[in-house]
């Protein structure tokens, strides 16, 4: 598999001399993966692909707008590319997508690979990339239905319990904005949290400000989050951000019958509407 990735990337880079290949290489712990940018075809031997390639590399395409880039993507990451194309952020023609059929990733940390899959992979539906120029691996059948047992557990709590649960979780937030920086859907020129006038959130770390920051972040990604789970992975204090994102995913699937990033053409729910929708339906 890795040979196919290397060969395809090399072929492409030889044809696009000013281009760049974004893939995975071995991290400094000698066991997990990290992103790598390759500018020279002979360096392609650095590329790896294994169960520690958790990063969503499509985010980097935003930094490379206007240049030619090849990128290695897993199925979840590929949906990010569709999202960005749909939102007019990327030019499909300038990117070469090496889509990899995903075996599921293992939970890994620096210097340590766990024996169990990442939680996002346990619940993953799509094992074949939604968009690609070259597909590596045999297309795999989709998992039939969503498993929202994690969301259901929170829904099953009382209102007070939910309030307390999220207060505790968001209370840990140190406002490092790692979740935002890693997120493919977060590319605003000026994030609402950085705006001074009006001051929506500001720099204070207090329960109220942490609350509005985390809600604002999640809701800006409603019907846009492609479930790559990167926000949760990078959070240095372990806030279960996907648990919030997945509620929105579940609701927008119910209300609008929409799954973000599955193609680049379908109008997202907040860009369209159905006149006949009744308020009861959305209530």
């Amino acid at each position: 598999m890795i040979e196919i990735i290397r060969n395809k990337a090399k072929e492409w880079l030889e044809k696009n001399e000013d281009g760049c290949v974004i893939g995975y290489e071995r991290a400094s712990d000698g066991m997990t993966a990290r992103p790598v940018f390759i500018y020279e075809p002979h360096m392609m031997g650095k590329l790896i692909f294994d169960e520690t390639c958790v990063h969503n590399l499509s985010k980097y395409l935003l930094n490379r707008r206007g240049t030619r880039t090849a990128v290695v993507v897993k199925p979840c990451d590929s949906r990010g590319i569709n999202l960005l194309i749909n939102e007019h952020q990327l030019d499909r023609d300038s990117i070469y997508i090496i889509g990899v059929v995903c075996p599921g990733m293992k939970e890994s940390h620096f210097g340590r690979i766990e024996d169990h899959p990442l939680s996002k992979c346990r619940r993953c539906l799509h094992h074949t990339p939604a968009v690609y120029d070259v597909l590596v691996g045999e297309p795999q059948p989709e998992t039939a239905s969503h498993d929202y047992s994690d969301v259901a557990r929170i829904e099953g709590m009382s209102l007070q319990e939910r309030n307390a649960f999220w207060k505790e979780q968001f209370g840990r937030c140190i406002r490092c904005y790692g979740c935002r920086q890693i997120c493919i859907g977060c590319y605003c020129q000026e994030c609402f949290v950085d705006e001074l006038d009006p001051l929506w959130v500001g720099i204070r770390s207090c329960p109220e400000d942490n609350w509005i920051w985390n809600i604002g972040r999640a809701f800006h990604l409603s019907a846009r989050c492609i479930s790559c789970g990167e926000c949760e992975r990078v959070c240095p204090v372990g806030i279960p951000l996907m648990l919030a994102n997945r509620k929105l995913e579940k609701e927008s699937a119910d209300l609008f019958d929409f799954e973000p990033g599955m193609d680049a053409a379908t109008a997202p729910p907040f860009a369209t509407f159905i006149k006949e929708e009744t308020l009861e339906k959305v209530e």
Partner: protein
Amino acid sequence: MELTYEPRIVGFLCNWCSYAGADLAGTSRTNYPANIRIIRVPCSGRVDPLFIVKAFQLGADGVLVAGCHPGDCHYSDGNYHTRRRVGLLRPFLDYLGLDKARLRLEWVSASEGKRFSEVVLSFTDTLIKMGPRSS
């Protein structure tokens, strides 16, 4: 002596229908509770979900978003978008521990002064029954 709880409602009213409706309620001397503080917006579609969340953060007990009836939007489709946004925000806030009954979306036309006062009255009643928000 019993302390009465007076909930605070922030009302985002669209300029063309609901604000005019509220105005009509006023000029025709229809009573409605003074619990609502009205913010006039050009269209209910202008109401960024952040406005709503910010109102709650700053201590609102309830938020009312009111716009033209579907089909009557001055800008033709602003209220359809609002319906979707509020429709998704309500279950989300509920999930985070903020009762969805504290966020209401209502259609009030310029001629529905009476309806406006009824909406505010019933919302205030609901909020009084629910009591103050747990912090």
